[in-house]
Structure formats: C-alpha cells, structure tokens
C-alpha cells in the first residue's frame, strides 16, 4: 500500500537570532504511515510532535531529511490540497460566522463553496444550531469542532489533527471519535497528535512514540501493547484448585484471573488441557496486554537510558 507520508532522517534544530543552537526538536526521525491507517503520535511535552507536523506540512523547514506528502513535496500546493489540518490552537476570525469561515477555507482550497456542503459539514461536527452565530461567542469545544470541520473541507485524503479533542466535553469526544471512524472507513488516513493516551488508544491502530526529537517506538498498537507469550485465563468459579493451576505453570492475577506464559500455541493448549483435566472450565482467554501509558512509560525510560 502506498504511504500517506514518509519522512526520512528528519532533523530540525531551533536557533537563537545569533545562530546558536537552542534546542534539537527533531533528531533523525524516520517514519512511514500507510494510507488508510489511523496513526497516533504520542510523547511528552516538548518531544517535537508539533514540530514534526509542521515539517510534514511545509509550515516549518527541516534542516535536513526528506519529507514526502501524499507522493509529493509538502511545499507543493497540490499535495496540501489533499490534506486537512487542525492546529493545536486554531485562531479563528471572531467577527465571522462559522459558515463564512468554512466558505473562506473552501475558497483557499480552490473549491467552490456551496451552502449545502458547508451546512452538512457544520451538522457533522454538531454546530448546525450555531451556523448564524459569530465565532467570538463560541466555547473552546465549539471552536475545536469548527476547526475539525475546516479540516474536513474537500474530503481530504490525509487528516492531520493536533489534539483534536482538546477542550471537548466527554460526549463530544465520542461524537468526534465516531466522525473520525467514518473518515477512516471513507479511506482517509488519520494522523493524530494527542496527549490523551486513552483517546489515541481508541482511535488509532498504529502508534509512534516521540521522545526528545527521536522516534523511540513505532508500530501497530496491538503489537506495542501486547506482552509477548503471556495469556490471561479465567475459569469458572472454584475450579480447578489453585494448587493444581500453579503446578501447571499458571500464576494468580487480580480478580480471579490467571496468567500463563506460553511460547506457542501447542504449549498454551497443553497447559489449558492440563487445567481442564484438573476440572477447570475455561470461560475466558485473552492475550495479556498493557495499556498505552505503560508502553509510553517504558519507551521513555528506555529512551532516557
């Protein structure tokens, strides 16, 4: 599958006015995101996430490295025409109505604004009732929704969203997740930068962890969060005896769950057969996994070492 974007050996340093290097924002980042994926970039504050997005979209110029955006260069307006971007803190024209703002974005995307299309966009982000109101009276969550609507103008192939649910209430977050899921099923690629790990975990299928300008982990979410060769097992209450399970190699977990290390399927089934022979009735089996916070903590610790 062709890549939505690919960056190689991306370096970006920030300098003072006198040319002295102040900080290294990106230190040789390599990353390729396939089309149709939902990719989440996570990392602590100052890790270089926003700088990465700016270099990706041609807003900042990298010191060195290669950036390919939808098969073209980010400086090429034809590439950017196929991208929708929601910045972290979008400044909106307070005196305008949301419809006028979306019409402006549509024109700048070299498309013809049509009232029905603009209204449909406002409806998608839940702002239909505020279509005639001035933006200056909007709450933070409403502004975020409008920013999202602007990113969706022209049904872009790649959506780059910097903290998309920032300031949005829990119910709104659910709506945004549903909207992003619809974009994914349309075939769009999602690139999300968020400090809300639970949000990222729910939306994204692939994750990258950026720390001090370096990509310290990258890959499918289930692979990153999986604990290799460990399984969680639950048996019907009271069966079998704990001693029998311990003898078979099971380790007691929390809430009546047992864990077992099994290098492959035959080993796992051998252990399960033993438990069943001891009178155990299997009711639940799943691969043991960690949440994204554990993965991030481990990756940052490894990166710091």
């Amino acid at each position, binding site marked *: 599958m062709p890549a939505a974007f690919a960056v190689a050996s991306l370096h970006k340093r920030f300098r003072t006015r006198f040319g002295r290097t102040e900080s290294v924002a990106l230190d040789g980042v390599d990353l390729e995101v396939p089309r149709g994926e939902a990719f989440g970039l996570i990392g602590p504050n100052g890790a270089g996430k926003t700088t990465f997005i*700016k270099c990706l*979209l*041609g*807003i*900042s*110029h990298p010191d060195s490295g290669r950036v390919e955006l939808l098969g073209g260069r980010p400086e090429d*307006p*034809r590439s*950017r*025409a196929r*991208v929708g*971007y929601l*910045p*972290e*803190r*979008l*400044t909106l*024209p307070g*005196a*305008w109505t949301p419809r*006028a703002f979306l019409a*402006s*974005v549509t*024109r*700048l*995307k*070299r498309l013809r604004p049509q009232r029905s299309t603009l209204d449909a966009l406002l409806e998608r982000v839940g702002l239909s009732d505020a279509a005639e109101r001035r933006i200056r009276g909007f709450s933070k969550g409403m502004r975020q929704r409008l*920013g999202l609507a*602007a990113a969706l103008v022209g049904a872009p192939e790649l959506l*780059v969203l910097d903290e998309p649910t920032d300031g949005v209430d829990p119910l709104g977050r659910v709506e945004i997740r549903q909207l992003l899921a619809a974009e994914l099923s349309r075939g769009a690629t999602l690139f999300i930068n968020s400090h809300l790990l639970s949000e990222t975990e729910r939306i994204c299928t692939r994750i990258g962890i950026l720390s001090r300008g370096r990509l310290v982990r990258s890959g499918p979410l289930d692979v990153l969060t999986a604990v290799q060769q460990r399984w969680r097992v639950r048996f019907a209450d009271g069966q079998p005896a704990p001693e029998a399970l311990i003898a078979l190699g099971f380790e007691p977990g929390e809430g009546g769950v047992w864990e077992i290390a099994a290098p492959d399927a035959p080993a796992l089934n051998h252990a399960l057969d033993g438990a069943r022979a001891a009178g155990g009735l299997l009711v639940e089996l799943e691969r043991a996994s960690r949440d994204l916070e554990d993965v991030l903590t481990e990756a940052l610790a490894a990166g710091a070492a």
Partner: protein
Amino acid sequence: MTSVAVALDLLREAAARRWFLALGLALTSLLLLLVTSLRLEVVDGALAATRLFGQPLYHNIQAADVALRPVFRVASQIVFWGGLGFGVLSCADFAPALLSPGRIEHLLSLPVRRWELLAGTFLGVLALALGGAIYASAGLVLVLGAKTGVWTAWPVISAVLAAVAFGSVYAGMLAVTVWVRSAALSAAAGASLIVLGLLATHRIPILDLMGQGVGRALFAGVTAVVPPLGKLADAAGALASSGPLAPGGLLRLLAGTIAFAGALLAVAVWRFDRRDF
C-alpha cells in the same frame, strides 16, 4: 486567484472592524452634512453665493469650475495625508493578525503559496485604501457637481494617487511585520516612511545644509529611494484642481513609488518564504 481570495477575506475582516465602520460613518456624515447644509447659487455658470448653515462663505462672483479648484485641492490634501495617517493606524494590525500563531499554521497548511498570502494581504489593504479614497473624493465630486453642475473626474484620479502612495508605505509595514510580528512596530515603520517621504521631498535643500560625512551619505542614500510623498501630494492636489503638471514628472514619480513598493514586497516575500512558523 488565491491572492484575490485572501484579499477578499481581509476586506470581510475589515468590515467588522470599528476603525473602518467609523471611517465610513464619518465620511458619509460629512457628505450628508454638505448635501443638507451647503447652499451654492450658480447663475450662468458662475458661483454667485455660497452659504454653509445659512451663513455666507464666499462673496466673489467667479466661474463655478474655477471657484471649486481650491476646494478640490484642499480635499485632495485631506484625502492624501489624512488617508496615509488613518491607513497606517488602522491597517497596522492586518499582517500581524495574519501571522498570529494558530492562524498562520492553518493558512500555510492550505494549498496557498506563501507569496500569495502576502500579495493577498497587500491587495486587500490597497483595495481598502483605494475604496476609502475614492468614496470620499467621488462623494465630494457628486455633491458639488449636483449643486454647481461642474462635473470633473480629476479629484477621483487624484485620490488614486493617494492610494498608490499608501501602497508604498504599507509595503514597508508588511516587510517589517514579516521580520517582527508587531502591530506597533508596523505602525512605527509606516510613520517613519511618511516622515522619510517628506524629507525625500526636500532632500536637495536639506543636503545643502548638511556637512560632508556618513550622516549625509546615509541621508542621501535613504532619501534617494524613498518615494517623495510631498511631491506626490502636490501632484495629487494639482490633478484634483486641474492645475499644471510637469510633463512626465508624474509618471516618473508613480513609477518610482511603485518600484519602491515592489522592492519592499519582494524582500518581504523572500523573508516569508524562509521563515518557520
């Protein structure tokens, strides 16, 4: 076309600003005041009497078109210098607002070339200046024309000169903003260019007063490139009052002013293209 879209957005933004609403109201009120309070009695093409709020203003009887010349000259100076001052103050914030964090990133992510953003901002401001100057001068021409039967387009053409002069000043303001995003600095740059433009108008007598040295060389260099705004204002006044103009002089002045604005815009685009946001 994208620059035109950016310019139109700037005009929409301006329409919501108090500065421009106040200017529009002030100009309209002034014109309405003239419509209702100014009485001009024209007999056989001659202005026989002038009354403002019922009080006689002008006693000499002379041809109406001749009598209106000083009026148009003064009006053109008000439009020129008043327009420059108002423009510097009211437009100083446009470019800094365009470059504000959270807005410029969004604009640069759209399929817009960087030079198109600057060109659109410049065009929008120029359209504002042109609109204001033409509205004021055309309004005056209409009011006085309806009252005296003297119709002339020269005051309107002279207003275009004022807009061109402001264009050169605004190009400097835009260039400064691309380096440092500050409305105050942008306004200061505009004010400085107006002062330099006045000094450039009288550069020869000033140079004669200066002794040899770096200061003189610097002054000579700077005032050689800055448009002599005083000469442009004089030319605008002469045009408005159908006065004599040196042949080719106005064209040379205009060409120099436009070249100055173009050079500043080129510097601004060069810097803007290399900047990170």
